């Protein structure tokens, strides 16, 4: 079963290189995505039918090991070649260094053999996310890329390449989450780094190339951490099992793995790459920043989180997570590019998840998993809707989305649901925040409590202003034609439905999916969400869904006389123009607040990076110095 999961997308990736016809390619994508989803369903059914026990696979895999070694070397060569071509040194050094380390372990170290792959509830969850969200993103991409290339005539059409990368990425992600052996994970880890690098550089514009290299070296740094962890595990514990890392709880390898996780999930000193990645076409952003890439980092951290509880590494991870949460959310305020906002909010959300996993107790991990799920769905949805809006409006500036509700209502609704999902009570994010806050308090970490308090306030601010911009009934200057294609809508609708279902079925999701994960990770069971809270949830759900609808119908019944809006008495009558000082008509324009001078990236970026880096470096030093906590 597993080979199929990894194999199908991988094979498809090759197919795209061969099939050059756009139509056919589209159908293949649909079919492929469908196949992946179907496979996943079958796989899960099979697994659950088998008792939902933890499965271990492939204790002996000589050949595959060798293939992977070859793959590692190939990746290294690729990086070296590209680095030489674009004259970058850092990635080259990092890549060579880590490959050498890994090869060293592979060929010299004596390690106890163990299973290379594992399936448990967490894996299953990740598979669902990858297959469904990733799959739908692929479907969306078909439509999107058409529009994209109509808009960006200057960009060379390399769609086959793009699709290959997409599917390859899915394959790598499947591999990553299913693997259990560190070397295997490392292999897939590297693949994701490289592919993301290639996808970011899709347009081959100068900026894109620069940003892609930035992403590359940062991820390679994480890869280096990974490689070091492998070395340490191999030499110290003589094991390469991820479970072993957790169960032995040796700080240094944990630290190195955490470093890898932090870079992948774009935590603070390394968050630049994620921002830079926004130059890529939107589907790749959607894929990288919702369902896959960054989730790999988070996944790793969640995996090792039981070992992080209450030690120095956990403290570092959670501090960095907390810091990222608040800083990124502050910086998001100053952005008017929708994708930038999404990027920052991704970083900030990941920060919260990371902070949760850094604390490493049942509640926080529970919250982390929930946050991850909601984040995956709504971020993917938001990225897609922003992409579609961009194709429609020709701009992804939030300011240009003023009054989207009357221009392109469907997109506005979808975007609205996505935004609501990100922060509004009772959508999932909030309940997770509730749990996280409680857990932070329980863990006695006052800094994190403050972070979450301030961070949620700032988060609220930028989402609210976006939402109100969307829903404003502002009569636009021009009308636009919705050019969003059906497959795009299909994907977005799917996400919207999932979002709503997840909210409605939150208790069930908690009981059937998240609680088992936590139970498996921690080996005991404890209900994180008490019944009273669930009851509260129910009330809130009712309130948020029923109330506005009910009110809508009630208010419909009453007749309202419409009058022009108030503009100090000089409204020209159509709510758009006012008489200006020269006695002429002037177009009224309203912009959101961006507080650029207070929360601008220029002011916050450097300090936050410095602080985060300092925390990291000091933390690593302490860990190396063996300071016990």
């Amino acid at each position: 079963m597993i080979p199929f999961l990894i194999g199908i997308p991988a094979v498809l990736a090759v197919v795209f290189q061969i099939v050059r016809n756009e139509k056919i390619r589209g159908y293949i994508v649909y079919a492929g995505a469908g196949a992946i989803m179907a496979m996943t369903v079958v796989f899960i059914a099979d697994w659950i039918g088998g008792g939902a026990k933890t499965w271990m696979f492939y204790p002996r895999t000589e050949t595959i090991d060798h293939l992977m070694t070859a793959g590692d070397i190939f990746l290294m060569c690729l990086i070296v070649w590209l680095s030489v071509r674009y004259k970058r040194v850092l990635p080259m050094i990092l890549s060579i260094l880590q490959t050498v380390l890994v090869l060293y372990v592979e060929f010299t170290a004596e390690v106890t053999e163990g299973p290379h792959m594992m399936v448990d509830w967490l894996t299953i969850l990740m598979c669902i996310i990858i297959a469904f969200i990733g799959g739908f993103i692929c479907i969306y991409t078909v439509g999107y890329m058409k529009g994209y290339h109509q808009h960006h005539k200057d960009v060379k059409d390399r769609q086959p390449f793009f699709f290959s990368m997409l599917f390859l990425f899915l394959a790598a992600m499947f591999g990553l989450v299913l693997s259990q052996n560190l070397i295997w994970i490392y292999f897939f880890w590297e693949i994701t780094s490289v592919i993301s690098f290639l996808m970011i550089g899709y347009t081959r514009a100068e900026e894109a190339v620069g940003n892609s290299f930035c992403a590359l070296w940062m991820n390679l740094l994480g890869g280096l951490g990974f490689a070091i962890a492998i070395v340490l595990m191999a030499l110290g514990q003589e094991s390469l099992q991820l479970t072993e890392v957790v169960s032995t709880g040796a700080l240094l390898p944990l630290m190195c793995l955490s470093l890898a996780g932090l870079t992948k999930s774009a935590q603070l000193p390394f968050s630049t790459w994620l921002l830079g990645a926004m130059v890529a076409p939107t589907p790749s952003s959607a894929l990288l920043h919702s369902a896959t890439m960054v989730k790999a980092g988070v996944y790793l951290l969640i995996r090792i989180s039981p070992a992080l509880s209450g030690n120095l590494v956990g403290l570092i991870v959670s501090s960095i997570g907390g810091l990222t949460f608040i800083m990124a959310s502050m910086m998001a305020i100053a952005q008017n590019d929708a994708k930038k906002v999404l990027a920052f909010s991704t970083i900030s959300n990941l920060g919260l998840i990371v902070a949760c996993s850094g604390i490493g107790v049942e509640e926080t991990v529970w919250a982390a998993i929930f946050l991850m799920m909601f984040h995956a769905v709504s971020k993917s949805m938001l990225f897609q809707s922003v992409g579609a809006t961009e194709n429609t409006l020709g701009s992804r500036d939030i300011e240009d989305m003023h009054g989207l509700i009357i221009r392109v209502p469907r997109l506005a609704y979808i975007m609205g649901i996505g935004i609501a999902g990100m922060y509004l009570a009772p959508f999932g994010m909030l309940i997770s925040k509730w749990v996280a806050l409680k857990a932070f308090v329980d863990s006695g970490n006052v800094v994190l409590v403050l972070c979450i308090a301030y961070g949620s306030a700032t988060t609220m601010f930028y989402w609210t202003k976006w939402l109100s911009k969307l829903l404003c009934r502002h009569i636009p200057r021009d009308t636009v034609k919705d050019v969003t294609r059906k497959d795009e809508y299909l994907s977005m609708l799917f996400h919207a439905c999932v979002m709503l279902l997840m909210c409605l079925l939150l208790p069930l999701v908690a009981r059937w999916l998240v609680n088992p994960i936590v139970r498996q990770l921690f080996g005991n069971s404890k209900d994180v969400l008490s019944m009273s809270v669930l009851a509260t949830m129910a009330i809130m759900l009712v309130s948020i869904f029923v109330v506005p609808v009910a009110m809508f119908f009630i208010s419909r019944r009453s007749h309202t006389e419409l009058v022009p809006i108030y503009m100090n008495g000089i409204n020209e009558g159509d709510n758009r123009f006012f008489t200006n000082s020269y006695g002429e008509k002037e177009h009224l324009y309203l912009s959101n607040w961006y507080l650029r001078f207070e929360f601008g990236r220029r002011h916050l970026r450097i300090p936050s990076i410095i602080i985060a880096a300092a925390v990291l470096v000091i933390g690593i030093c302490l860990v190396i110095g063996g300071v016990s906590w």
Partner: protein
Amino acid sequence: MAKRSIVPFGPQHPVLPEPIHLDLVLEDETVVGAVPSIGYVHRGLETLVKKKDFKQYVYIAERICGICSCGHGLGYCMAVENVMGIDVPERAQYLRVIWVEMSRIHSHLLWLGLLADALGFESLFMESWRVREKILDMFDETTGGRIIHSVNQVGGVQKDMDSSMLKHLLETIKDIERDIKPLVDTFLKDYTVQSRLKGTGILKKDDAILLGAVGPMLRASGVEYDVRMLGYGAYKNLSMEPVTCTDGDSYGRCVVRIKELFQSFDLIREAIGKIPEGDIHVPVKGNPSGEYFLRIEQPRGEAIYYVKGNGTKFLDRFRLRTPTTSNIPPLVETLKGCQLADVPVLILTIDPCISCTER
């Protein structure tokens, strides 16, 4: 680059009772551009000199503005008197000074109240206006009108103040002085007020001169210029120094106006002490012929009256350049870079009087 909001500010706006209008360009709440517009109160009363004779016109001049009404009457009369070469009796000159200073007190208290209102400080507004009420009552008692006084006439004043009135006036002033002490403390020392005034709308000395600021606005930027120092009317017999302040910000303007308030108290006291007995007006014969530019210091600063007569009872031209006209360019300058919440405050710190400006 963020988009900038373009919004209208005024004319109908509760911050200021008057219809001032600005086109504001905003970034968040920061004003990056402002274009003033006037004309919402434009009546065109300068042409009325062709229809009303020069004696009647005093009543119209007084109605140029209800705040500095007394000064307008005075300025117009003095300009005409200068053209015609009339010497006004001493007592009338003293009475004029007393009334004009009273109107300065009334105007400044009004301004303090409006400023407090713009700052959202309701109780301070109420207190200032409650105090102001006393001076209005005094006007009512001495001239018969709270707002429009109709006391000036070409050649003197229409009404006299007897000693009991003068005594009452002294008492009232003492009363007012006692009452506003705590208010002044609040204006000058309260933290929240300071956070709004200090450092906003800074106008440097050179800019103030170049942009032609006048009155408290100019003096708050450190320029000693108070037309009363020319010694027109009874001022030549009274001792006074221009009040200045070097801050150049809203706070400085507030300080200057508050100090002027106390200066006016002193001037009135001195004038009452020195007032001679005698006639209050001289008969006026003939019609004005010739021209004259006359400067007087109004509550808001130097106003210039231009009168040109042609020997008939209708003047050829009357023109008034009011202090607010001169203060609008500096205002526009100080508005740039301020916060939207500062806009009403900054507008108020020039103490605009649109009806004066637009006539």
